[in-house]
């Protein structure tokens, strides 16, 4: 029987994202870190979460189609032209 203050792997994986966000309470964070200290699999899981976030962060916006770019340029040009002089 586990002590109530301990968490198991199935629970630890549910805390990984909040842990990385700094969103766990102090008590939850201590439980999570204590679990990691004794669990290489969950430590690996957390590394994978970090890597997932890093790789996701490298996605770049897809380029607009040339037609859309032209339309936005025109829209912006008209908007600038319509602004009262004292707001530019």
């Amino acid at each position, binding site marked *: 029987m586990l002590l109530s203050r301990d968490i*198991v792997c199935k629970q630890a994986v*549910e805390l990984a*994202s909040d842990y990385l966000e700094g969103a766990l309470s102090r008590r939850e964070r201590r439980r999570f870190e204590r679990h990691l200290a004794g669990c290489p699999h969950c430590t690996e*899981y957390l590394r*994978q979460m970090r890597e997932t976030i890093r*790789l996701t962060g490298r996605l770049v916006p*897809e380029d607009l189609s040339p037609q859309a770019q032209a339309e936005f340029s025109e*829209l912006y040009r008209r908007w600038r032209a319509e602004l009262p002089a004292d707001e530019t």
Partner: protein
Amino acid sequence: MLRLASTFVSSRAVAEEVVQDTWLAVVRGIERFEGRSSLRTWLLTILVNRARSAGTREARSVPIADAGPAVDRSRFDSTGHWSSPPEHWVEDAENRLGAAALATLIRGALTDMPERQRAVITLHDVDGLRSDEVCEILSLTPANQRVLLHRGRSHLRQALESALGENG
């Protein structure tokens, strides 16, 4: 903006319309902008509202339950410990697949996930907005935002592991 709009509507053409529509709304409403939120947050909030109504018009948008465990239950034994632990792939992900293939993989996994998860991941992890900005733009509570972030990241991690793990 186009990417965020694409979260809510199915076609590229409609997404581009939504972005253009947003700029028009911004141009018309700029006097009403009171500076309580950043210009970026305000702009993206307008975009999301426009995209949502366009998505409803397309009758594609359906409410989705975002529940479900981070990792498939079958990978744990009856005591809650790993029976099928995470495979190793972090060190050699880029060497094995290459940056372009990884980006394609992540884009594909983003497309598969429920709309609200995709929107949160796009704003928070791709565009780098703060959690409070994401909450404001998508009208989410902080707790809901964290759950959606957690589910979305879990989905992406699993997609990477499926492609990169030894059994992938």
